[in-house]
């Protein structure tokens, strides 16, 4: 963080706005000074005078002079973000929390389940895994979206499929003409995947209902609680575990997460609400 007041923002200019789907855009930002983060950590992105919201960068953690943030239009602040134009100034706070412990993935097969805009943090993780692919056994990405139109990062999949040890699968809930991949929820893809589960970890990121059913399915397949990494979405605000908005059982998601193993949090009542 470039400032010692954690509530003070680092200014960043919008360099490019990329339409990913009708509701999702990626903003390429240029921070006024290089900005470091680890994959899976999140930032608070501020619209001057209007509000801020938490997002996990979708770009590579190895690139510090630019950052990409993918935002789905879901409410007041995100709708304002979607109206941003090139050259406008945003504020960044962070990075906050604990991201993916990639060093624990060394020597393992990594199964990634992602849904909707949940592919944004996963894209950052994929960039990080690509950098250390020699230390990994295999990376399998399963991605689900509602329709082919809402499928984001369309060029990412063909690029990943060309990388040694990487394979990707896509599915949609609802068929549209021209779609030649799977139809069904993301967990249906699991039946097609061969894994040595004992030497695997699973990473899940998406809407709570998708994460809930994915976790259940992974447990059924034989994954153990601590082999499943979940990126929890809560109302993170201050970023340092003080404001109370992201409290989840004994944890503050902003400080102790957002990445948890299922084993860490499975005892929390109403986990997916």
């Amino acid at each position, binding site marked *: 963080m470039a400032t010692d007041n954690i509530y003070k923002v680092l200014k960043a200019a919008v360099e490019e706005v990329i339409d990913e789907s009708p509701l999702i855009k990626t903003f390429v930002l240029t921070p006024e000074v290089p900005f470091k983060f680890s994959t899976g950590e999140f930032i608070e992105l501020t619209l001057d005078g209007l509000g801020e919201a938490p997002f996990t960068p979708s770009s590579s953690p190895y690139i510090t002079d630019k950052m990409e943030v993918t935002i789905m239009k879901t409410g007041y602040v995100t709708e304002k973000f979607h109206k941003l134009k090139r050259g406008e100034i945003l504020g960044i706070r962070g990075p906050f929390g604990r991201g993916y412990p990639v060093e624990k993935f060394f020597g393992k097969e990594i199964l990634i389940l992602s849904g909707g805009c949940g592919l944004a943090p996963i894209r950052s993780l994929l960039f990080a895994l690509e950098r250390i692919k020699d230390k990994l056994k295999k990376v399998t990405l399963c991605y689900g979206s509602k329709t082919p139109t809402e499928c984001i990062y369309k060029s990412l999949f063909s690029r990943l499929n060309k990388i040694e040890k990487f394979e990707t699968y896509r599915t949609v809930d609802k068929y549209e003409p021209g779609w030649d991949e799977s139809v069904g929820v993301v967990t249906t893809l699991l039946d097609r995947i061969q894994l040595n589960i004992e030497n695997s970890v699973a990473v899940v990121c998406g809407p709570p209902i998708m994460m809930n059913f994915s976790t259940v399915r992974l447990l059924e397949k034989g994954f153990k609680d601590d082999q499943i990494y979940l990126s929890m979405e809560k109302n993170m605000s201050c970023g340092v575990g003080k404001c109370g908005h992201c409290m989840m059982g004994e944890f503050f998601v902003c400080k102790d997460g957002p990445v948890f193993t299922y084993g860490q949090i499975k005892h929390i009542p109403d986990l*997916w609400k």
Partner: protein
Amino acid sequence: MNNLYKINRGEWFRLLQVLLVSSYNIFAPVRKNGGIDYTIVNTESYDDIRYNEAKPVTPLKLFFLPVKLNVIKTEKTSKKTIIIGAPSCDVEGLKLLDLIYLNEKFVDKTYFLKREKTLIITTDCYMVQEHCHCTTYGINPYSEKGCDISLSSTLNNIYLTSWSKKKDVFIKKLISSGQIEATSSNESEVISEQRRRTIKYLDEKNEKLPGTVKTGEKIKEPYYEIWKKYPSNCVSCGACSAICPVCTCFIFIDKPGFEKMKQLDICQYPPFERITGGEDPLKELIMELV
């Protein structure tokens, strides 16, 4: 007990008037609207200060965590502050806030500066309110460690015990006035006896209340029957959290120029944890309480 100093009531008032009001902002409890609450002491109101009565409506936390605070523009406080009449229960609450805002991983600078510039003088509670139950949670109705100076009042004298390093300047001012003196063991015993009486009264009054251990167990059971009782008539007004000595949740309100107002927020308000996707872990009131 640490060193106990004594000062005649008349001299204490004179000191407040002459020595202190000029160099400090002094807050102390006075009678207000049927209860007692803090007011800023001026040269005419020092005589209205209530000692040894529980307890001011405004929690001590609001001196350090104001309802609204600009966290980008640093506050420039010129005068030091003295708070007279803080009850022991509020000081215990402040200790918990210190753990949140002044720990080894995070120091909130504004909170730190306010704590540094404030001298807390607690008063023993000789009178208690209907719902006072400090002893149930292992807290005494008088303060020792955690405050800077503790104060007990009798008809003729004010007794002061110093507990922190910060009290030095204040005590030196009193000593230099020539009106403060050490007390006898008999006088200490009078204060101790009054404290014992208050504890006994509170223990008897709250005999049936669960202590900290049992309360902690109940909190761990979110659907415990007792938690269903309170949401039944809760209207999410947030008053309980506002007067709670430790409730400290907040929300940011963004202002132009990337300024942020930190404003006290309360988990009893319906959208407290709601995310834009619509999920809300605290949708049921019962979850807000536990």
